[in-house]
């Protein structure tokens, strides 16, 4: 190996195929498509970056994974460790977690407003060793911050999932897995941006119709044609006159 190559290898900038063995344990994500494209599932340790807008099913994508993590924990020891939600975009609903069979005893919510507080809390939770998953909603992330989180996740054998909006500054962060999500009628379109120890793949659609029949449609047909169930909030437009200019095209009111 020449000197330059050796140096790059030493810095960890080159990934060689024999590192596959070191890749951490994989947990079933609960979705067939996801397992197929991600070498069998999501990592049990490390940092997962999710670029998504809120409310398209990004949490639903991870709920079965969290449940499987919990089961794996319980299989190893009687008591399970905790899940921590840090700075969620709105109040977390208990019913959602209970429907996903995640007990509320295993949950801690930290409603910090300042980003630095959130990061501090995330690091503390990860390295404490009593949390197995930390979900963080955070917009701005620097490389060194992710490195610290990764180190903390290794210490506490936990996974860190970071939700960010898709238009955030796209640095090459040292995460274990980075995915970008997009809404689809049948579920979610997943674009794998980075995967530790995996091959690049084309964007694919995760079908959620089986798990969530009422929130997704069975077929891929974008049923914009069905006009009878489109609501244009006429009254609220009247109330907020200053925003009324924007949506004047489809004026089919429910009243």
């Amino acid at each position, binding site marked *: 190996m020449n000197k330059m190559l050796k140096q790059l290898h030493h810095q960890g900038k080159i990934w060689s195929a024999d590192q596959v063995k070191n890749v951490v344990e994989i947990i079933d994500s609960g979705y067939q498509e996801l397992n197929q494209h991600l070498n069998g599932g999501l990592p049990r340790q490390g940092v997962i970056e999710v670029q998504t*807008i*809120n*409310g*398209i*099913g990004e949490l*639903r994508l991870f709920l079965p994974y969290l449940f499987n993590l919990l089961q794996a924990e319980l299989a*190893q*020891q009687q*008591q399970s*460790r905790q899940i921590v939600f840090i700075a969620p*975009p*709105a*109040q*977390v*609903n*208990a*019913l*959602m*977690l*209970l*429907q996903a069979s995640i007990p*509320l*005893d295993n*949950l*801690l*919510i*930290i*409603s*910090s407003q300042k980003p630095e507080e959130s990061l501090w*809390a995330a690091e*503390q*939770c990860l*390295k*404490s*060793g*009593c*949390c197995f998953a930390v979900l963080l909603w955070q917009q701005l992330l620097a490389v060194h911050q992710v490195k610290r989180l990764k180190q903390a996740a290794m*210490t*506490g054998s936990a996974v860190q999932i970071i939700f960010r909006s898709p238009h955030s500054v796209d640095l090459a962060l040292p995460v274990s897995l980075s995915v970008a999500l997009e*809404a689809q009628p049948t579920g979610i379109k997943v674009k794998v941006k980075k995967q530790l120890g995996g091959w690049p793949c084309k964007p694919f659609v995760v079908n959620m119709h089986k798990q969530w029949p*009422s*929130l997704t449609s069975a077929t891929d047909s974008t*049923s*914009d044609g*069905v006009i009878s*169930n*489109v*609501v*244009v*909030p*006429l*009254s*609220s437009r*009247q*109330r*907020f006159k200053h*925003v009324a200019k924007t*949506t004047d095209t*489809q004026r089919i009111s*429910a009243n």
Partner: protein
Amino acid sequence: MLWLYIDFPSLQLDCLQADTSVSTVTERSYCNDQAIVIVDSKKNCIVQLNESARAKGIQQGMGLGMAASLTHELCVVPYQMAEEEAYLLTLAEQLYSVTASIALFPPHGLALKVGDMLQLYQHLTAYIEIINTVLASFNLKRNLACGYSVMSAQLLACAGVNLITTDQNIMTKKSADLSIEQLFITDKAKNSLARLGIKTLAQLQALPVKELTKRLDSNTMEYLAQLKGQTDKSLQFYQPKHLFEHSVELLYEMINLDFLLQPIKQLLALLEVFLLRRDYVCLQLEFHLYHRIDGISHVLQQSLVINSATGEYLSAQWLKLVSLKLSSIKLHAPITKVNLLVQHFQSNTGEINDIFLGKRGQLSFAQLASLLANKLGDEKVLCLQQGNDHRAELASCYRPFINCSTNKINRNNNHTGIATSKNVGARNTDSSATYSVDKQLLRPSFILAEPEPLLSNIRVLHGPERISTAWWEQSKDKTTIQSFNGEATNGNEPIAEHGYQRDYFVAKNSQGQCCWVYRELNNQWYIHGYFS
């Protein structure tokens, strides 16, 4: 009965110096050559002074003016008897672990009943050695003297005689040389004895008692009898309190919170010993910080309450929490005194850890939660609970973790998983009770605290589902709703908090976001949550 009397001639001064000696290095070097005197403001004389003050020619009993003229760099501290007494109690508390009967002689003396303890320690030297090791950590100037009566031991120790012996002859020989000025009798009695030409104790004791009773009052005669051991003095023995209260007075006013950690560390170390001896843990510490206002040296500035979700006794763990708490507070004025108060204790039941799996991280969950709560504030570290209501915003609620954690710890300790009947009862009344989960119910994963007006087009997937307030709650707010209906055009009206009737829909907007929207009676549309 053999007694040991310990006199601390410069208790307040030694405390002051002990507090500062553990402070930062820069302060210590400044402190070492600083002449400190403690002045009794009533008598205007110096009662305690350190070595460097003595080197500059200052003597005990001197007036403040004279002392000030001897050196220009003089640190003057007013004498505070209450403080000495408080410190004396601390010493008694420490000694209580090695010796049983401790009589307090405020402000700066302790009498220990040695006779009983010799059965345990066999020999006097062994006993003294133990006492000295306990006192060594305080670094106090002290005189120890033995006597066969409390008063004779006190007399020797206060006269500055160090005498460790069981031999009565040596004791009498030593005390015989003492002048009557050193006796604990009134000045009037001393005068009348001086007029008789009696200068030493030996001369006094040579006189027959009958002769003396004619010339001295009854109190003095009683004292002399106690000195000989003929009558017993009624003594108040130390009883340990079920409370931890200690304070550290700072020689320098501290504005830097990092420096403040040093005295706090001292207090926590004391607390650790206190808790360890009793096998207790505590859940809450109260720190009181004092500052100076208009010459009054200790005025309460602020109190810090530090909670831990799990019972702790280790000072290192507490220090971590305290330093986090300190990082979030602001001082208005320099601190002159720190006080620590712990009122409630729990017996240390210990955590149940699997011996084979062991602890994985450094912290337990409760420790982590208290760490977070102390840094971010109790209101930001929350746990989720179900509520018994059909309205989504009330069916799930946040609660500060610290408030519901005791419940949780009990459950964790209950390792077998069999809830006792008492536990079940407690949980039903508590809002942490679990209700049945309807798997079919469509509810959003995130609920907005304040519903937002719907501004974009949506495509309805499901609905409507009518949710209205129960009639008994609605009746209260009926008027509000009606008035709200009437003024539908005026959109700035706040939404009625309690009474409402809403038709909920699950809908998708153009971005593909799955929203939980509702229509009010007056056809106003709002977003209430998102299906993430």
